[in-house]
């Protein structure tokens, strides 16, 4: 055996280590850890002599090869305070001292827990079955049987509570089958509950428990078992929510890629502790992974502001910014592609459609644009539209209408009206949802259409050569311009502005004569101004550009926009018109012209055209320049449709908003306001039947019967069979005392729907009135009219007909008797007061329980009301029922704001009050004495 082979086989040989191996050179060469350990052992034993240096050399060599080698383990003496530096030990001792004090503090409340406490909160877990024996060795067949027989005691009742039948069955099955069980994997933990039932324990203990669960979570986290970690963090949080546990859970969720959950946790932390660095960092991570680079960067900057040395944040910010840049370029090329190209572009030979789109964007960023290239966009926009429509127009109208007319008036219909309310609300939600979806859809559409435009228009903007020559500009100026374009593209408008200004400056200094280029520079700078909202300067630049190059499209369009934003609609209109003369296909100009026309009509009336400045005639050359690619008829049509749809959609939104507001006002009983809203609605959509009927209702409430009738007529013109319109017209007619027309209307209603009981009742009543009026006409006219209190019985079938037309029927029709709530009472009282009808007020008071009076008045009490009530009581009630008057007075002064109102009473009202008390004092009654009255009077006067 050669020495060489021995060298490499030595690990197999268990022979004694030869003396020649106890050598620096050999040890240095040896790579076998086991053999080195043996050498070390021999050396340490001292059998071959003591070589301390060789031992240390061998140790260090071994450590190099295997730092964890057992041979290197030495017995260390225990460290003492002396073996640590003074500071270190001092810190440890201080730490320990703090802990000791803390524990003493935490221990005290624990000790003070009442002893019977433990009795109250008996542990709910049942006691295990008594004395169950567990098979001692691995269950083999016969043994198992014996064990079964050895169940010594019957199981107690509690055992059966937790007796798991399936488990038992399974066990029996297993015993029978005895197949090889698959591996049991404990790594799944579906059985751990994520929440802990915390018994009624002190906060102290809760904190301890929560901490314990959090520790377990941390451990699971460290073992890379993130799911388990999340479970334990959740448990901890279910006991006491802490920032630390939330933060940790967020991190675990991040590892699990549950971005939403992680986000939720981060938000929670930041709610509890705004500015928590960890949470911010984690939220940034989540944002990063959710591709929200902008938000991620914001969070990271916050983190770095707090902790400038935070390496993780710096790193993430770096990558985020990189992404952001990439993404930004992409996004710009998507969303604002037009602008890039617009800025980039020097000549006007590009397809006009993209041009049109480009120009459409700056005005209405969320407005989907027409055109072939963005075929996806209108579709999506339509989706939003279509979803919204039903709400605005279709069933949404009637629904909300009868809902609001129910509201509050008819208690007995509470159930059904509530139901409607719910449906209404959900409808609103749906509407909101759809409108949101609509808008996002349109935004997306924008992007996609932009993207498409990019593809169509070529990716000019993607690869920007800053030194690309621009027209006749010298290199440094063209560079400035390109830089400006790039900045503009990135949305840094102010910087772009500066570049352009420099370029313009340089231009005038260089003395070149190239009006085209200067025009473009001005035009581009105008775009920057426009972006920054500086319309004045934008107009200036545009004007300058137009001086240089008359009838160039972009400056004109920009100027128009600027004018429009300054609300100088006439000039804007002229500019837009000029644009359209140059190029008829500029969609944005079309839209704006329509919009401005509407505004101008509103502003100046029908003669608006006369006030316009002259629209310059565009020379044919400029027009033709633009007509190189006339859009196909198809495209034009699509575009027109698109525009129409757009306008419609916008009107729709406004319309539904107005209507909603109107309905709200009706619900609140503010009919005047509702009226205004409905009127506005009708301005937007004069053909909406529901609005007419709604407005009619308002008019009815306001007792403007003529208008109500007109509205009903209008509604009936549109929908000749509208029951509601008929019914309301009937009521209006009744108010106008045209009983004949009224009855015919009601008959019409009943003909359409015989189930409308209100109409039936109304008809009966009107027939009586009709007869009376006819009789009156024949005989003496002074016969007082019969008053018919209307109490409508709730009915599911009549939902289409509003039922609240009871309180507004002229002077002598009294109010709703037996008011049941503040609203009804208030309505009745107001009606009576408006007409100065003290009798009906007295009646109302007579039917009101004195105890309820203050609550009915709620906070609506004012001086006039008090005066009126006093008058009513004085005039009508006092004679009939003095004790009721006393009772009322006795309760009235407890109403809200009474003392304040009392101070503000005017002379007349005071007089009424004094009179009432005088009269009351004069009345002899068994229920109260003069003294009582005097006492009461003191409270009033």
């Amino acid at each position, binding site marked *: 055996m050669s020495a060489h082979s021995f060298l490499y086989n030595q690990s197999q040989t268990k022979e004694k280590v030869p003396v020649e191996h106890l050598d620096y050179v050999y040890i240095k060469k040896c790579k076998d850890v086991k053999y080195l350990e043996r050498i070390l052992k021999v050396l340490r034993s001292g059998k071959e002599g003591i070589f301390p240096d060789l031992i240390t050399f061998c140790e260090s060599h071994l450590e190099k090869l295997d730092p964890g080698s057992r041979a290197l383990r030495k*017995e260390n003496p225990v*460290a003492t305070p002396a073996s640590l530096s003074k500071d270190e030990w001092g810190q440890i001792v201080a730490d320990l001292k703090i802990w000791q004090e803390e524990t003493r503090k935490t221990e005290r409340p624990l000790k003070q827990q009442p002893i019977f406490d*433990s009795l109250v909160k008996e542990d709910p877990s049942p006691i295990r079955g008594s004395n169950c024996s567990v098979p001692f060795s691995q269950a083999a067949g016969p043994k198992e049987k014996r064990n079964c027989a050895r169940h010594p005691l019957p199981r107690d009742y509690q055992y059966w509570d937790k007796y798991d039948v399936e488990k038992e069955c399974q066990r029996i099955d297993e015993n029978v089958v005895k197949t090889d069980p698959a591996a049991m994997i404990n*790594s799944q*933990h579906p059985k751990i509950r994520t929440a802990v039932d915390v018994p009624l324990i002190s906060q102290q203990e809760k904190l301890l428990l929560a901490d314990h669960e959090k520790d377990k979570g941390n*451990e699971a986290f460290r073992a890379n078992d993130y799911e388990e970690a999340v479970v334990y963090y959740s448990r901890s949080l279910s006991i006491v929510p802490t920032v630390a546990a939330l933060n940790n859970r967020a991190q675990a969720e991040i590892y699990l890629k549950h971005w939403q959950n992680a986000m939720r946790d981060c938000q929670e932390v930041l709610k509890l502790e705004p500015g928590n660095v960890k949470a911010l960092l984690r939220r940034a991570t989540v944002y990063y992974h959710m591709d929200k680079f902008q938000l991620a960067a914001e969070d990271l900057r916050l983190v770095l502001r707090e902790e400038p040395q935070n390496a993780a944040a710096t790193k993430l910010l770096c990558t985020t910014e990189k992404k952001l840049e990439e993404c930004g370029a992409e996004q710009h090329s998507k969303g604002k592609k037009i602008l890039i190209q617009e800025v980039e572009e020097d000549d006007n030979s590009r397809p006009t459609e993209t041009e049109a789109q480009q120009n459409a964007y700056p005005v209405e960023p969320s407005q989907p644009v027409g055109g072939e290239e963005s075929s996806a966009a209108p579709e999506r926009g339509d989706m939003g539209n279509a979803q919204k429509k039903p709400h605005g127009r279709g069933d949404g109208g009637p629904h909300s209408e009868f809902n609001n007319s129910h509201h509050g008036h008819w208690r007995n219909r509470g159930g059904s009206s509530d139901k409607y309310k719910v449906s209404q609300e959900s409808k609103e939600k749906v509407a909101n949802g759809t409108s949101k979806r609509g808008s996002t859809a349109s935004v997306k559409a924008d992007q996609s259409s932009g993207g498409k435009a990019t593809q169509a228009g070529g990716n000019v903007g993607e690869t920007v050569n800053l030194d690309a020559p621009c027209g006749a500009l010298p290199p440094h100026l063209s560079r400035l311009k390109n830089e400006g374009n790039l900045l503009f593209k990135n949305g840094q408008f102010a910087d772009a502005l500066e570049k352009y200004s420099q370029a313009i400056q340089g231009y005038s200094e260089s003395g070149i004569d190239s009006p085209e280029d200067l025009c473009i520079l001005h035009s581009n700078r105008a775009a920057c101004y426009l972006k920054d909202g500086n319309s004045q300067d934008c107009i200036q630049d545009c004007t300058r550009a137009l001086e240089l190059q008359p009838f160039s499209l972009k400056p004109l369009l920009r100027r128009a926009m600027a004018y429009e934003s300054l609300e100088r609609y006439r000039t804007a209109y002229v500019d837009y018109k000029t644009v359209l003369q140059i190029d008829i296909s500029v969609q944005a100009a079309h839209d704006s012209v329509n919009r401005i026309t509407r505004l101008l009509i509103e502003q100046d009336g029908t003669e608006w055209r006369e006030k316009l400045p002259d629209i310059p005639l565009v020379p044919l050359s400029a027009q033709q320049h633009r007509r190189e690619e006339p859009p196909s008829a198809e495209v034009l049509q699509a575009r027109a449709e698109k525009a129409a749809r757009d306008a419609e959609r916008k009107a729709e939104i406004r319309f539904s908003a107005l209507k909603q507001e109107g309905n709200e006002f009706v619900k609140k009983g503010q009919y005047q306001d509702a009226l205004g809203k409905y009127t506005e609605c009708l301005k937007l959509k004069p053909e909406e039947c529901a609005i007419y009927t709604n407005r009619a209702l308002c008019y009815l409430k306001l007792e403007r019967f003529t208008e109500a009738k007109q509205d009903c007529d209008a509604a009936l013109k549109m929908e000749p069979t509208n029951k509601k319109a008929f019914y309301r017209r009937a009521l209006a007619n009744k108010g106008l005392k045209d009983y004949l027309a009224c009855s015919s209307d009601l008959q019409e209603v009943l003909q359409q729907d015989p189930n409308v009981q209100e109409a039936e009742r109304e008809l009966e009543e009107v027939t009586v009135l009709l007869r009376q009026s006819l009789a009156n006409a024949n005989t003496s006219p002074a016969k007082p009219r019969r008053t018919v209190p209307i109490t409508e019985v709730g009915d599911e079938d009549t939902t289409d007909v509003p039922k609240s037309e009871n309180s507004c029927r002229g002077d002598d029709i009294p109010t709703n008797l037996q008011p049941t709530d503040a609203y009804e009472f208030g309505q009745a009282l107001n009606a009576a007061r408006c007409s100065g009808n003290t009798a009906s007020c007295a009646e109302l008071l007579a039917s009101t329980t004195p105890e309820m009076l203050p609550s009915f008045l709620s906070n609506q009490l004012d001086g006039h009301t008090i005066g009126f009530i006093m008058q009513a009581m004085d005039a009508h009630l006092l004679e009939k029922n003095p004790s009721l008057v006393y009772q009322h007075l006795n309760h009235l002064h407890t109403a809200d704001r009474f003392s304040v109102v009392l101070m503000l009473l005017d002379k007349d009202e005071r007089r009424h009050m004094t009179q009432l008390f005088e009269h009351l004092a004069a009345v002899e009654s068994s229920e109260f004495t003069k003294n009582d009255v005097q006492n009461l009077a003191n409270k009033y006067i």
Partner: protein
Amino acid sequence: MSSPLAKPQIIAHIQKGLNYTVFDNKWIPCSAKFVCLGNFPRGTGVMQIYEVQHGEAQLIKEVEKPKPIKCGTFGATSLQQRHIATGDFEGNLNIWNLEMPEVPVYAVKAHKEIVNSIDGVGGLGIGDGAPEIVTGSRDGTVKVWDPRQKDSPVANMEPTEGETKRDCWTVAFGHAFNDQDRCVCAGYDNGDIKLFDLRNMSLRWETNIKNGVCAVEFDRKDINMNKLVATSLEGKFHVFDMRTQHHTKGFASVSEKAHKSTIWQVKHLPQNREIFMTAGGAGNLHLWKYEYPAQRSKKDSDGVDVGVAGSVNLLQNVTLSTQPIASLDWSPDKQGLCVCSGFDQTVRVLIVTKLNMV
């Protein structure tokens, strides 16, 4: 090993000589106090309460009991009560209120012979479900007790007739992560380790480590069982990965021969389950850290999951005395604080530093 200062240091903070043989020490939860349980030379039992104050252990209370006390646990008591359950040389299980330690609040003749080991679960917020105490005795039985049930155990694990009775040296609870699942692990003098499933009332797993099992402990009692450490008479300890059980191979394990003598005790750090300390017969303490493998389970040739054991790293080792260290307890409240005692009639409070950095 490269930078010794970065390693955790084990510092002897307090040493206190005692006039009796101490078998067990336990920290009282939520306090700076610990209990020493032992045996007076005159053959009676003793229970002492010490408080750590100003760098000293001050005796607060001492009670003498008729029988030497071998072991104790706070595992099955509530935080308010903090009653200690003890097992003595006569096989009695007693629960004491430390405020009034004269009379036990619960007493039962649990075993015919000495109670070697005791463990509790379901108290102190550790482990869901009923509070339960398990005792292991020389009489070969392992019994589970519910302090709410007098006189009889709720579960009894004893060898059937005809089987030889082995001396049970150690018991431990684990797997108590919900109110039904619970396991008891018992180690015997012949090297048997048995894992009893209390939910199914069955023996779930058994193995033999060839040497008497001095101590077993789960890294956590109240989680889905994760790791089990078993120490042996001949200076070896085994760490079992309890997550994946193979039907024939059982649990994967890693073993380490560390001490040159018996490893009497193993205790996991309450604040970090991957760190544990072993106490050896030569009066030395070893601090270990378990490292998980990249994958904790793999498929064997039959496509069945089989566990993969990780590795253990020695973080620190110190020699405290020439006598064996028989008991060891980490403070549940203060990371790094521990108390240990040996047959040299000394109790020591140790501080282990830098545990949060490993």
